[in-house]
């Protein structure tokens, strides 16, 4: 079990060695940089292919003018970048900031993998920050899912006893049918759901509607509400559940929904490595044309691994 120190982050530091952010077609991509005015020696922006080029171009230009080095998300560039940082043992990094708002879940997984593999004598402090979005209705059609499986090879987990029953912990969001589909695929003996609360009531209504086939017959005791404004609380709740489930089960977490839930899941998996697997979908569901505007609120976690 990895020693993991997770704290609530209320104020971002004004000086980092490395800052990592993502640029897609969501206006909130620039919120953290804009509002928190984070300073860093090296700044990287991972750029994603997505529709609505006009807005994407504007966002990319923003990061360019703010002196971010762009890294295209394809062809293993992110893994290469993180690999270089990891092997920079001559100058170990002490503070890293990751704006997870617009990072893909796979890349966020690579970042947490990178953090867990750090073998420097002084462990860096890693600040994960996330800009919450204003309400936007769920997309009508999420399109076909080409891959459903471990989010990265690192998070495929490993069990020394494959005869153990499995427990599935789901974060639910706008992705309809995924919860049921995943249950069919994995055939867990126990399933738990994490349902986001604490935001615009329209979100709650839309999420409940989208997941009605899954949630309607569910005993309330297996559904945990989590407050999206309290990622530390979410991490603690999830960690506690996983700890108890691991006594007799293999655990798979599928953190659909908010990316802050995904972050908490990756951190819990890193803590119990390799006993916990993280599953997700590819391609990730992106809004086709609709924008995701910042709500003006952000949350953060400070992590030492």
């Amino acid at each position, binding site marked *: 079990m990895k020693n993991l120190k997770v704290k609530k982050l209320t104020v971002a530091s004004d000086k980092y060695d490395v800052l990592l952010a993502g640029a897609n077609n969501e206006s909130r991509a620039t919120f953290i940089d804009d509002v928190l005015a984070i300073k860093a020696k090296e700044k990287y922006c991972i750029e994603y292919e997505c529709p609505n080029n006009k807005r994407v171009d504007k966002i990319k230009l923003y990061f360019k003018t703010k002196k971010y080095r762009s890294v295209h998300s394809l062809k293993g560039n992110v893994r290469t970048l993180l690999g270089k940082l990891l092997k920079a043992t001559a100058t170990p990094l002490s503070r890293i900031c990751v704006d997870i708002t617009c990072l893909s879940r796979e890349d966020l997984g690579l970042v947490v993998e990178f953090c867990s593999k750090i073998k420097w004598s002084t462990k860096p402090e890693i600040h994960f920050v996330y800009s919450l979005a204003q309400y936007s209705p769920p997309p009508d059609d999420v399109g076909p899912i*080409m891959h459903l499986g471990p989010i990265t090879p690192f998070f495929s987990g490993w069990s020394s006893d494959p005869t153990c029953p499995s427990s599935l912990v789901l974060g639910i969001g706008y992705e309809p049918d995924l919860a049921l589909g995943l249950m069919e695929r994995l055939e867990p003996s126990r399933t738990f759901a994490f349902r986001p609360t604490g935001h615009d009531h329209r979100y709650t209504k839309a999420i409940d509607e989208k997941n009605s086939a899954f949630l309607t017959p569910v005993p309330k005791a297996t559904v945990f509400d989590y407050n999206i404004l309290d990622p530390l609380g979410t991490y603690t709740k999830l960690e506690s559940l996983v700890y108890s489930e691991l006594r007799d089960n293999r655990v798979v977490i599928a953190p659909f929904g908010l990316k802050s839930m995904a972050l908490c899941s990756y951190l819990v998996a890193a803590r119990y490595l390799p006993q916990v697997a993280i599953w997700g979908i590819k391609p990730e569901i992106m809004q086709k044309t609709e924008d995701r505007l910042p709500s003006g609120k952000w949350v953060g976690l400070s992590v030492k691994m």
Partner: protein
Amino acid sequence: MSKNTEPAPSPFDSFNARALSPEIVARRFIPSVHFEVLSRRAHTQVIGPRGSGKTSLLKMLQTAALEAWDHPKAQGFRDKIDFTGVFVPTDVGWNEQLNSIGEGFLEESHRKRLGDAAFIAHVHHALVKAMVCRVSRYKQQSKYHHRRVTISEKIESHIVKGIATAWNIESSIPSLISLKHSLRMRIADIWTFAQAEEFLPLGQRQRRFHAQGFFKPELMSSIASAVEMFNDGINDSEGRWAFLFDELELAPERIIKQIRDSIRSIDDRILFKLSLSPFSSQQLQAKSPLSASSGNDFQTIQLWYTHKREGYPFCSELLKGMLQDKNLQETDPEKIFGSSIFQGIDDESDEIKPYEAGSFQHRLLVKMAKSDRSFKQYVESRKIDLSRIGDLKESNRASLIRKIIPTLIVREAYRTRDSLRKSGVKQLKIRSRKLPKIYSGIPSIYALTEGNPRWLIGIASNLLDARINSSKVSSTAQETEFLLAAERFISMLRIIPCTDGPEGGRLTDVLDKIGEFIFKSVVLDEFSPQPYGELSVDRSCPQSLVNALGIALNSGAIVYIPPNKNTGTITDLRGKTFRLSYLLSPYYGIPIRKGEKISLSRIMNLSQSLDIKSVSSGDWKQLLMRL
């Protein structure tokens, strides 16, 4: 939750034998003809979709299950089964782990070696676990015994030392239990070894791999030598061991090949009993003429029912067992669930014989002849006198009337009167979204659940639990439950991609087209005594569509109609015939019966010009929410 306890009942927990201990599986197990075949001393493959009971069958061959089994036929099986079952489970999660080990920093060949080594250690662990079950010293007192042996600690120590040497294991305490734990540790060590490689010099990797003990044992020779050592230790040199590989298609490719290739060559003390999904990738197909083939080298058990009636006896037994659990053992299932409308049993006029004037069939025929113009034409063209159908010879009645009744029942349930249809309206009219009240009762429940124990247990449990102060389960409650089950099933299937299918790119888009097409053929089109109900997959079907349908077949969403019985696994769906699972009949509004065959490409082409709003596509969801 302990591994040896039953999971708490909840709609969240699927009934899956994999998570249950052999003792729990034995408690619910009902021996079928399949178990008779499986328990023979022969290599066997068990083929069936999800939930069809493959795992239960294999698990019941373990010593622990046989000893815990209390059933009138159990002792007969304990006497007959002259081998020791070694259950080797595999699942999707572990398969992903085996495939992912070392990905991103190790070469493919090294990754395969690690995956194979982990799987072999897993098989070794299962074998030692089965050995432990046979030694009386390790077993609690039980009422029944199966192949128990008593050996001294000295003999056990001798056996363990021999096996540990053969498998390159350092076992500090020479006991079977200790050996079992060492094998678990070995699986954990394999992962640690792989992770360490990411940061070690590439140049010496070959040497490090070569030095590792866990790469040394080869699957077949290692299990053969261990079996021989144990058999010699207990003075039973010819003792047989059956390796029960569950969901073998999820094992590493090279392991599957070794098993296939070994069926002919391995010594006759080792048997293989394999469970497989109906559709398997090419790797399971015997390529060499020397490879094992179905019928000659191994028996095949097919766990789905092409003809619905074949599954009724098993379903009936299973349901009776469930009623017994609820202290309703004296109750006839029909008294609780009622009879099926498709049986033609008439609740309102039980004094009147079927087909006589006033009977259910007669009233239906008369009603449809009045409201359905094309059916009226059918009656007239065949000169059927509806007032005298009771007098028809049985053979005539069967060919003219009886076979069309199920179609008419569905047609009547969904169709509005022709006179209500406005001429020139392109969208054909169907009845408002109410429950049709035709999908309930015995034996419809058996047919709708396809003889799939997981489906039957899941649906019947919910229905029995929902009874309030009443011994009967209403047809509305049954139909609602079936629609919920179908809705959940469709939701599960919605994540399966199908890029070469219709717009939308999902398998469910294909299933919707098929379901809507059959609905149109049965309900909306001119009356046909034999509407469409089966589909053949064309030779020209694109690969992604075939693959998606393969997953649908393995999930049980479509059912293979083979030309012969027990044809084994299918490696290509092209040129073969299927039907939609009857579980989807209420969802699409189609009969619980087979029908005329049509090619998939024709359905796809004709569906493009189809303009109907079917009963599917989410309408049921809204209806169920209201209910």
